[in-house]
């Protein structure tokens, strides 16, 4: 870690920024998230109806797929991810809160909270602690020794992206070695493996039933049209979320940390690690909404429970604070960030 940074000052400035921003949070933010939810519902049901109208004109089907995919992206990113982080808990809304919300993907919300909210956000990019770094499948830095399977890890990556919701869903089971491998001794598990299995199959099963059986059946003779439409919508959502998330953590200048480095970390050092472990993507308002504001990955990692409706506003201030402390602020247009990700995956597929 860079020893020339005044970590205490850094912590104070960032804490103060968060505090300031939180005092402004209120009616507008509540209205914002409800608005996004209304759009999500409209796109979802509009999409499902259009899929069935594919019989009139194939264009209906195409618009239907895109509409359903957008709904699923909104549900996953701007609503699900952020609500599950507790960003909207202050509203006291019985349905829009991290304690009881669940989302429209195969992964049980509670499992994701344990792995993502806890492990990933606490131990961001700490090798051996943050399983999101490479998802246990990819070698993305020299911290891991090279193995033959890394040779074709670009294909593994493509598969992971396409099946991303299942990867996310299986993530905790893999970490706990529920089906395969030996359990790690130092990993304190808080939940019974059989309970994990039950939730995995129950949530996943419901998703499969809904998209690939119930709605296609409701369409009667259009069974296959609707089934394919749902499949493609899920695929688009998977590719999109995986791509955005990879751009947030695996661009070329993202750092990794060793466990020793992070022992007895101060708040300032924690902020510093979040800053170097993430990178942003430039884009317009709508783009940010569809990424669930993970295009502000840096801000999200500094303040994971700040409402997403505020990330655009705090970003310039964060950048200014970083500049004063001489901390790099990694951001760039989508294509540049993505090409860095691809390069990284390819680079580390070789020893």
């Amino acid at each position, binding site marked *: 870690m860079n020893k020339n940074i005044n970590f205490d000052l850094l912590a104070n400035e960032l804490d103060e920024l968060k505090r300031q921003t939180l005092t402004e949070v209120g*009616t507008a933010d509540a209205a914002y998230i409800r608005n996004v939810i209304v759009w999500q519902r409209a796109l979802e049901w509009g999409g499902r109806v259009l899929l069935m109208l594919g019989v009139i004109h194939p264009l209906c089907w195409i618009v239907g797929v895109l509409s359903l995919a957008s709904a699923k992206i909104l549900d996953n990113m701007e609503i699900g991810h952020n609500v599950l982080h*507790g960003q909207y808990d*202050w509203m006291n809304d*019985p349905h829009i809160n991290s*304690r009881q919300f*669940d989302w429209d993907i195969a992964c049980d919300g509670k499992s994701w*909270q344990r792995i993502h*909210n806890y492990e990933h956000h*606490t131990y961001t990019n700490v090798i051996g602690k943050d399983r999101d770094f490479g998802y246990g499948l990819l070698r993305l830095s020299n911290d891991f020794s090279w193995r033959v399977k890394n040779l074709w890890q670009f294909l593994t990556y493509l598969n992971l992206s396409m099946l991303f919701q299942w990867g996310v869903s299986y993530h905790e089971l893999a970490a706990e070695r529920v089906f395969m491998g030996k359990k790690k001794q130092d990993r304190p598990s808080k939940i019974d493996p059989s309970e994990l299995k039950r939730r995995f199959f129950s949530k996943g099963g419901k998703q499969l039933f809904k998209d690939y059986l*119930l709605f296609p059946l409701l369409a009667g003779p259009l069974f296959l049209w609707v089934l394919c439409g749902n499949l493609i919508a899920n695929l688009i959502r998977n590719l999109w979320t995986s791509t955005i998330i990879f751009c947030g953590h695996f661009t070329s200048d993202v750092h990794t940390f060793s466990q020793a480095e992070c022992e007895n970390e101060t708040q300032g050092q924690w902020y510093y690690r979040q800053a170097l472990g993430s990178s942003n993507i430039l884009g317009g308002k709508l783009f940010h909404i569809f990424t669930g504001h993970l295009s502000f990955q840096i801000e999200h990692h500094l303040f994971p429970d700040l409402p997403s409706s505020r990330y655009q506003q705090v970003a310039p201030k964060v950048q200014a604070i970083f500049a004063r402390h001489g901390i790099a602020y990694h951001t760039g247009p989508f294509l540049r960030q993505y090409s860095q990700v691809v390069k990284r995956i390819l680079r580390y597929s070789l020893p």
Partner: protein
Amino acid sequence: MNLLTRLNQVTAKTLFHTDSIGSYFEPIMQRIKPAWRTHCFRAQVLGHQLLRADVVQLDLSADKAWPQAIAGQHVLLTVEINGRLMTRPFSISSAPDQSHSRYPKKRVIRLTIKTHVDGAFTAKLLANITAGSYVNLSAPQGEFAVSDRIQPSTPLWFVAAGSGITPFMAMLNQMALLPQQPQNPINLVYFAKLGEHLYVDELMALQQQLNQLKVQLLIRKNGDNLADALSDCTVQSQVLVCGPGQFKQDVDRQLDAINHPLKQRQAEYFQAPVMSQTHSGEQHIQLTQRGKQTQLTLATNNSLLNGLEQQGISANFGCRIGVCHQCQCIKKSGVVRNMRTGEISQQGEQLIQLCISQAVTPLELEL
């Protein structure tokens, strides 16, 4: 659980990944009816009136579905204030069948609300509701009511202080509406500061209507005291007390002195939040865990998570630094301090993170 609820749940879980169909459609319903909530009844604000600079009377007309209250019960009123849904309990100060000349043909519930200048809820209430808008109500709650098994010979004593008069207004109005006057002698002992008695005209009118009612409007500063006011109270009397916690204790002491039996007392009292800890630096916590209740005392200089663990209670946790929200639990009532920001919470129900919260007042928690 009946079949319909079960069906609703299964459908909602499978298709909408929510706990009920209503909660999935709630954000859309709110577009059409802004105050629509799945877990609440709705009530329209008919109007409000300042009874005093710091007391508002709110006249509401509840949904047809709202179960009628028994005189003396309270409701939880939910209003969205600056994006937050805030809920507070208030006694209903009108009788169920009372007619209100200002709103003919309406079923009216009157709430009498003491406002506090710096109160997060009451101070902002009027700015957030207008006549014609909607608020949310819970079903009527509470056991503070005159039992219909009371003998006609049993004297009734209603002892109120300050805004503690509200449930008695409901009870007295209810009695005035009965086809037959109650035979019980009714004594209303009502303490307030000089010039701060509420509903004086209404009480005088009630005294005209109810032969058995005797109203005492008392002011402590003027030398009135509980002992004199209750001097005619006998061991046979049924005593109902409503007011601040301290007032209730004073009344209890008086009644103990005459050996008045505990089972003939009913009380509803409000505790102003004590911002200070007990002398030993501890705070009382009432904890509900899977329906089981436990009472605890925790050191206030510790986080709630550490405190609970030291008492052998395992709460869910992850990062212990306020990042992951794994330690979240429901605070039913009480005030906590956020150890990271120093921020003091509100009093009502909300989600809190155990690992960065300290108790400021006694708390009710649900894990």
